């Protein structure tokens, strides 16, 4: 056994010598995945979270309108299963009580139910509409649900300064169907391993949107959350800000809080 290891090491160092690059260096794909995984896993174990969010929508002329909602998330400890999430709207008032329940999958379409309070109706909806706008905003449905590590394949590009920090720049490609993007480029800092910026490229390959993550705060000495996300559509000049309130972690949510039968009992 020991001999094998020595032999292996010898062969590796020979290969390294021949390649004139260090062998422990991975392919750009492996390195890109490693950066994304380190970022994703820095968030592992948060359990469940709850936060109020204000969405500010701005058209090209700068006119604003806003919506407020509550976001709850239940983490699934198994990386091959997506998290469960629930969005409950409180404004605009005419859609108050409307709720969207999602059971994210990795590569299969997510399971989604919409609750319409006026009729008290729970409606299973198609989740094929990944690239469509989420409640009229510049965020697509997939921008909310596609944070799972294995929804993408990755390619490491370079390291470069980003603000006061240094960032790994990683290209990522959606592996799930019906994405509106051919690729995204993400900037992940090398200090806290958090995403600072994402560029989205449309189906033609041109730059469509730019998302900036601001106001990161640390919870429980471990979990980072950006409290301000600014999405700008560079083709239409429309933009959407997401402004989060204080996050609450481990509020005692379980699978039973993320079932369709609960949608009519949220208020």
């Amino acid at each position, binding site marked *: 056994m020991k001999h094998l290891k020595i032999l292996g090491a010898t062969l590796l160092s020979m290969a390294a010598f021949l390649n004139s690059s260090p062998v422990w260096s991975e392919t750009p794909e492996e390195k890109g995945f490693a950066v994304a995984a380190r970022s994703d896993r820095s968030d592992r174990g948060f359990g469940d979270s709850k936060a109020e969010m204000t969405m500010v929508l701005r058209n090209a002329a700068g006119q604003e309108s806003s919506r407020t909602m509550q976001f709850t998330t239940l983490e699934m400890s198994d990386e091959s299963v997506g998290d469960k999430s629930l969005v409950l709207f409180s404004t605009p008032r005419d859609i108050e009580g409307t709720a969207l329940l999602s059971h994210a999958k990795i590569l299969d379409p997510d399971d989604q139910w919409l609750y319409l309070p006026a009729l008290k109706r729970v409606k*299973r909806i*198609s989740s094929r509409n990944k*690239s*469509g706008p989420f*409640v009229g905003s510049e965020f697509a449905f997939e921008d909310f649900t596609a944070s799972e590590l294995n929804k993408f394949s990755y390619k490491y590009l370079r390291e470069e300064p980003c603000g006061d920090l240094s960032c790994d720049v990683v290209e990522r490609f959606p592996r799930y169907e019906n994405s509106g993007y051919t690729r995204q480029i993400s900037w992940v800092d090398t200090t806290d391993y958090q995403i600072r910026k994402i560029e989205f490229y449309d189906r033609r390959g041109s730059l469509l949107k730019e998302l900036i993550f601001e106001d990161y705060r640390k919870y429980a000495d471990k979990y980072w959350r950006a409290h301000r996300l600014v999405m700008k559509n560079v083709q239409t000049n429309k933009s959407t800000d997401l402004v989060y309130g204080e996050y609450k972690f481990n509020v005692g949510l379980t699978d039973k809080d993320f079932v369709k039968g609960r949608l009519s009992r949220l*208020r």
Partner: protein
Amino acid sequence: MRHLLILGVLFFCIIAGNAEQTIADDSEWDLSGNVSIKARGFSQDALWPEQNTSDAEVSVSGEWEARWRSEEGDQRASFIPFVRWDENDDERSHIDLREAYWAYEGDGVELLVGVNKVFWGVTESVHLVDIINQTDLVEDIDQEDKLGQPMVNLAVQKDWGLINLYVLPYFRERTFPGLDGRFREPLRVDWDDAEYESGAKDKHVDLALRYSHYFGDVDVGLYYFRGTSREPRLQLSADGREFKPFYDQIDQVGLDLQYTRDAWLWKLEAIVRDGSDESFAASVAGFEYTFYQVYESDADIGILMEYQYDERSSKKPLTIADNDVFMGARWSLNDIQDTAVLAGVVVDKKTSETFFNLEAERRFGDNTFLELRVRAITNAESDEPLYSFSRDDYIQLQISRYF
């Protein structure tokens, strides 16, 4: 007196709406609601004598919502009065408690006591399996407005699905328009002096048990209902001058299914109802297919098609959904104002009786919502169910202010 009460409640809705900010801030109460003004213009003179001759009508409605949740989150309550004042029809001017309940939630169990609304079903053109709440027919002929139903509801959530038990101790009679109103039968329906098969009349305790869950792409609901039928038979009164509703005792089993795959929604609702002397089955089945982001815009276009079948005999409460095809299209702009248009037509395959419906809606600013509706009935011969409404084609504009 009734008018005073209605105007009083309406006034209260408006005042309470404006006072909302000051109360809601530091308590567990959430106060909201809306006030709407609705104008209808009719394209033809009314069919029946004594109907109001005006070709326009205006009505005002208000709904005030007070919701409470305990600090621990395990208890909640709701109080939602609704009121409408109509300039022409006294029966349409009415007050109802849409919700007034208290509920306690334990681990996967909830007990709710009071008045509530419950919706079951998946299809768009007819809501066949939906049975808990009585239809507030004076509100709209589409039967989507419901009266609050007193109940005790026990909900038990398990890994394998949700079980709901309903005990319904008091029956609500369906509302009908008065002599002045549009969308009425040839004679007045004396709706609040109904007759019942059960000797307990409106105190008959109805029961319902429902199971609902999903298995992958399939959502399913199955229930058993035993009690007073929500659909009345209209019987001529002894003096032959009006209709009296008669409510049968029924046993009903209902199933709703939806298969969601890609951009397809496949839907089925089916019931089997066993009444006093006859049992029958009815179903509605169809699909909805959505083209997302058409022509590289943000808009979606959905195509809907459903087939309605009902084998009930003429001894049963009349239905128009007996052998009809529904076709429709939904256009959603997915813009900031949530602009959407739904247009549909229901055609009776045998008689070609046709019901056309168009609904368009858009938000203005943050709190104002505008709805446009156009409805028309054609090919309704005098012996067919929609004949009574055949001259009630209308265009309606509603402005709602939410607070």
